[in-house]
């Protein structure tokens, strides 16, 4: 159903809600995916940011500052987040099932994946991931953190 394309670009709109904050934080930008495991999330506004994942290497540059490189293998929590995004794009159901309990609902035209992390360290942070889409396109991603914080992203091709 997904992952049939070698490269894919899309724009996104994101809304994060935190228990610690009185208002949601919104941002917009675009996504780039290249097979098999390259993912870029470029945020344009309100704060420029560039997140690149290549294999297990995650590099993050916030607002023109220094680039932080993180090893996903050493960070199961982050890895779960990345896998949740990259798995559906790559169409790599096996990779998804390694990291999550996967429940599929809906039809090919309007599907939904409910992911629950398996790694206990990841589960401490991330309660569930809900992804929905139609055909080969991912439309919405909702991340629910263990503390109730949420991150909602809608994607336009």
């Amino acid at each position, binding site marked *: 159903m997904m992952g049939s394309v070698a490269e894919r670009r899309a724009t996104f709109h994101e809304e*994060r809600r935190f228990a610690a*904050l009185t208002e949601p*934080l919104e941002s917009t930008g675009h996504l780039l995916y290249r097979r098999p495991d390259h993912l870029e999330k470029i*945020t344009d506004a*309100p704060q420029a940011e560039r*997140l690149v994942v290549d294999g297990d290497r995650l590099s*993050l540059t*916030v607002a023109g500052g220094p680039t932080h490189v993180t090893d996903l*293998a050493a960070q199961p929590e982050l890895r779960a987040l990345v896998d949740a995004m990259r798995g559906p794009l790559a169409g790599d159901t096996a990779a998804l099932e390694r990291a999550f309990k996967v429940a599929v609902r809906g039809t090919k035209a309007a599907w939904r994946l409910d992911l629950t992390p398996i790694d206990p360290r990841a589960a401490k*942070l991330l309660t569930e991931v809900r992804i929905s889409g139609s055909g080969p396109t991912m439309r919405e991603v909702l991340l629910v953190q263990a503390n109730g914080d949420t991150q909602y992203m809608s994607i336009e091709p």
Partner: protein
Amino acid sequence: MKRGHQRAVAWRQAAPVLGALGVAIVLLVGVLSRIEVHTDMLAFLPAGETPAARLVLREAREGSATGLILIGIDGAPVAELARISRSVAGGLTRSGLFAVVAGGQAAISEQDEALLFAHRYLLSPTTSEAAFTVPALHADLERLLGQLRSSAAPLAVRYGLRDPPGAFLAAMGSWIGPSRIRTIDGAWFAPDRDRALLLARTRAGGMDVPGQEAASAAIEHAFATANPGGARLLEAGPAVFARDAARAMRTDVHRIAIVSTLLVILLLWWRFRSPLVIAAIAVPVVSSIAVAALVVQIVFGAVHGVALGFGVTMLGVSVDYPVLMIGHRKSGETAAATRARIGPAFILAVITATLGLTAMVFSGFPGLSQLGVFSAIGLITAAMVTWFVLPPLVVAANLAPVAAGSAAWLGRIEALRRWRLVGLLPVVLAAGWLAARGGPAWEDDLENLSPVPAASRALDAELRGELGAPDVGQLVVVQGEDDQAVLRRQEALIPLLDHLKAEGLIDGADLAARLLPSATTQEARRAALPDPDVLAERLDAARVGLPFRPTAFGAFVAAVRASRSMAPLLPADLSGTPFGARLTPLLFARDAAWQGPIALQGVRNPARLAVALADGGVVTDGVATHREADPGLVGSPAAARNAAIYVDMRAELSHILSGYTARAWRWLGWSGVLVLAALAVGLHAPARVLRVLGSVVAAMLVTVAVLTLLGTRLSLIHLVALQLVAGVGLDYALFFARRQLDAEERARTLRTLVTCNAMTLLTFGMLAACQTPLLRDIGMTVACGAVSAMGFAFLFAGERPATGVPRTGSNERFG
């Protein structure tokens, strides 16, 4: 009846020889079963000259770092390497033989993280009163909001809200340190190539050979059961070196013992064609090994494998004595008559050969002294047994060389001596060439004398670099009466180290105080923490204009409250944790004092570093200054005042080496004088002394030239091997130089010496094929030296034949 009588006679003749050999063998077996054989190579190296160097050398031998094993796996696709690496790591952990197995898990365990997080305000260098003022907190909150907007939001929620000043991340940064390791599929990989990396530390000490053998077997087993396919396992580290050196040496010693014995027996068979002669020759040789091993065991408390290997090779020299005795006997001659004919040359040869070994005995290099004692005792014993025990046996069995008497070949060969001036040519060439290139190349790096092959050392450096493990070559040793004193002293050095890093003199420094500050420092930080109610008020002021809820920082305030009554974290609190394992090599008790070595990374200019450190009050323990340093510096009251010492191991070791080389030169000079005196007394005629010594000096010159030509850098080892060459060369020259010999005796001498030379060549040639560098160097030098010694002794030491010698030679055959 008659045949039976003959058999009885033969038995009566043979019985004493066989009986004596039986006694010698029983003695040898008895001694070998009693002695303690050591194979660890570090026992062979000298102790350091200064207290700090001794400490570092001893730490390098016995410290917890010695159990470190660096493992690399390469030669397969990355995914496959990662799978093998994970499987090996699992196998090693399950074996229970390793205190630490690291190769891909998170850099910091949850348990450690919780400990670090709880103590963050005491451990972090960021804690100060200024960090908790309203402006500082406001800046922290703005930064935190930016992080919440970013993809790092989960981390900001997890750590940032509970710790806006960022104390935890700062403290953790010190523990993790900069590392270039990549992680792929849960396995560590080298930064620049497809090689999986693992780091293990054995529970057994590095020099605990059985413990290391077990650990090594566990690694090989774990690798084999991981279905490695075509992948290659690489291992390095002090323990691996010790194990490999010990293995190589055992193989070498066994092989030398067996092969040289066989070769010598074959040669003797070819020469004498009599099993009884071989048995007789074996009597002094076997007893000499037994006595030498016994004496070394008594003097040194153990026999080193290298001494045993070398000693067995000394067979090639000590076997000369019985061969000379039997080879020179005329059939039917009495013991006294043979002794009388060869006596002066024989005794002088034994004395000079033994004197030649004095340089080794007194070299002060523990391993070499043992070799020297083993060889000297072996030579003397072989000579004594040959002189006192062998002749009666030989007479009883009526043993003598088969082809006694002169032959036509003698004259032809001796005629070569008319060309002896031509023989000077290689000597002049060698001397001229050596002089022109400014002498032979000298080895000034003790590391190259290390028993560890250069390839293994290169692999170690490579894996260390890839893993980011510090090298132990450059250290600042900090000492104190307890662990807290060491930590306080290290803290005083941190500004200096930061300055050195800024100057580019070092890339970094790994020290205990950066991981775990002293209790004093922790208490000072604790005192800087604000009252929780005051902090809550300041936070309210700080979040004005920012979208944080009033309740957002409850956990932060609670943590500060808890920290204000928290006891400082002490080294003992970390024991048994992975952090403890990281801290132990950097902070430990030794010799009633606490030691905190600071490993300096990326030192490019030790001389400039020493100057910069001296400006900062750190004493340099190097060639230039340590002569003036107080020898009782370690653990003395002086240590309390100035307990930071810079140790450049490379310089220190070079210095040690040059000290030993100078000493070896001195002994070479002394033994030269002694040999000269012995020759002057023994030979009377100055012309003969000159010819004998000249041939030996010529052989040594040519040997040095040949070694240099082959690209060898001469070291202490070669120097003592040259002494051995001198001893052997004197042997030959003295026998050739004997006066008033008839042709028959000259033929016996030539034959016998050729036999001796061939035996030396065979045994030391075997040594040259060893894997143990030390033995290889000695073998190479002696084999090369023995051949030239034989040639020059024949040419220069023997009498020059009168004109028309070929005819005289053949005439003598009839006369």
